[in-house]
Structure formats: structure tokens, C-alpha cells
């Protein structure tokens, strides 16, 4: 059963903050697993030549963090993630802590499904919002 049920959710609810640390090792493992050897992910000089401060985090990793955030918020079982959207506003670099936050924006029933929309954000330690996103969760 989920920790939080559909009935207990209210529009405006804030999700508890969730921290992720994308280490260089983990990013290299992800790149190796998906064969995504983009220079912007691995080569500091190439990243700078692209105008980036340092090798960055692949967008898919941040999207996966949003997916995990739903687990962190809702607990195990009783729901299915139906949609997750991510907009990358500023580059996130490796070995820098990310803080995820979010809030419930909509709670509704559609075609018999109980759905909840949330807005999502990632901030870096400087307080910059690097990533915006949203997700839709369907409850059993």
C-alpha cells in the first residue's frame, strides 16, 4: 500500500524535499550502460568549449530522479507513474548535491482513473533552480 493515498492528497500539498548526489562514477556507469559517450558528460575541456561549467548530468538521469521522487513521496504500491516531464533550465554538474522539491497542482478523475498532477523542481546548492518538471500519478 502507498504511504499516501489518493484520498489523503490535497491540491497545494508540498512534497518532502529529496536529495540526490550524482557522482561522477554513477554518471560514467549510466553513460557506459547506455553508450551515451557525449563529450559534454565526460570531458571537462569539451564541456567548457560548449559553454558549460563542467561535465554535466544527462537529462535522463534527472528524469529518473523525478521518477524516484514519486517513490520517495508515495511509498510502495497502489499507484503508477503515468507521465513525467522535465525541462532543463541550467546545467547540473557532477558531484554536486541536487535538492528535489514539488507540490500537488491538480487532483482529478478522468475516464474512471484517479489522477494527481505534481510540479517538480531541482535546485543546486547555490539555490538556483536548474530543472523544472511535472508528473502525473494514477492511483489504483
Amino acid at each position, binding site marked *: 500500500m502507498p504511504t499516501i493515498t489518493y484520498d489523503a492528497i490535497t491540491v497545494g500539498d508540498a512534497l518532502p524535499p529529496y536529495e540526490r548526489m550524482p557522482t561522477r562514477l554513477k554518471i560514467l*556507469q549510466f553513460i557506459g550502460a547506455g553508450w551515451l559517450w557525449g563529450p559534454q558528460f565526460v570531458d571537462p575541456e569539451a564541456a567548457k568549449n560548449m559553454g558549460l561549467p563542467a561535465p554535466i548530468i544527462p537529462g535522463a538521469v534527472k528524469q529518473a530522479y523525478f521518477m524516484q521522487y514519486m517513490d520517495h513521496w508515495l511509498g510502495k504500491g497502489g499507484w503508477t507513474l503515468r507521465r513525467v516531464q522535465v525541462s532543463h533550465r*541550467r546545467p547540473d554538474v557532477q558531484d554536486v548535491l541536487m535538492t528535489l522539491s514539488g507540490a500537488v497542482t491538480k487532483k482529478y478523475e478522468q475516464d474512471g482513473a484517479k489522477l494527481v498532477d505534481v510540479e517538480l523542481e531541482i535546485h543546486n546548492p547555490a539555490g538556483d533552480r536548474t530543472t523544472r518538471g511535472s508528473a502525473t500519478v494514477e492511483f489504483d
Partner: protein
Amino acid sequence: MTDTTMTEDAAAPADAPDEESLIPPELAAAVGREMDPSRARVEAEGVRRMADIFDVRDAALEAALASNDRAYDLPPWAIYSISRPQRIETPGIDPWNTLIAAEELHVVRPLRLDDRVHIAQRIAGLQERIGGRVGHSLFIHIDWSYRRIEGRPGNERVGPEVARVRHTMAHFRGRHTGE
């Protein structure tokens, strides 16, 4: 700021910007065309690697992977375990000279172990911008469709969609502003 859009319905920008376009002809010609599909199989080891990368500690998932439980609904990030066979194709532009600006995943049915998946990509549209926050840039919208392969080898068919993804890739005339 000038903003021109090219989609399957509008094959050419209405107002060509003064500056030379970032859209190579071969990319413009590829809009709406489905690229060669690939296929993949969801395997426990690939999902296990993603779980390790994302620091997932989930006893039920570990048990399902250990027993190759084909009825277990995998977490949505399992899709990254089958992304390897499909390379992004952006004719005329080196995909490594782009950055992912946005992505959206729709899950129709969670992936399960041993699912065989047909993966197709299509350039859905192009959007060129001059000015604005990041300067002269080209946004390439790519749609991916993940469909389950049904039937036995030799008598297979592409079945229902299990997930779809839209990637928006950004290509810049100059360097990314870092913002």
C-alpha cells in the same frame, strides 16, 4: 526574438530569419520521417545496473530480478536499460553537439522482464529561435514510440504501445550560455 517553426504540417519557415539558418536541408527533409526502428529486450541485468546507478534499494524489485519474474511491473526508469540499441538520428547535425532541453515520458503499461520492444523514432518538428535567453538556437523535437513485440520468433508482430517519449534537443550557433 525571431521564432520560426517547421513541422510536418508546415514544411518551411514562414519568415526566414536574417541570420543564416541552423537547419540543414537534410534535417528539414527528415521531418516526419520514421527512422529505421530497433528492438530490445528487457533483461534483469540491465535493470539491475540501472537500480545500482540510481541507488535504488527495493527488496521486491531485487526479488523479481533474481527470479526473473515476468509479471512484475518494473519501475519507469527501467526504460533506460533498453535505450542503448537506438541512437538519436539528427541528419546534418552531430547529436553530440546538442543538449537535451526537455523530455517527456508517457507510460502506457509498465515494462516487464523479457518484454521485447520495438523502438521507433521520428523527428516531429523543428523550431529555430534568434535572440532570447540562449541566443540563436535550434530545437529539434523527436518522438519515440516503444511497442511491445508479440508472438513467437518467425511469427512476430508489433503490438500495443507501452511508452512514448518526446525529446527536445537544443543546438546552438555559439556556445551554451551556461544558464
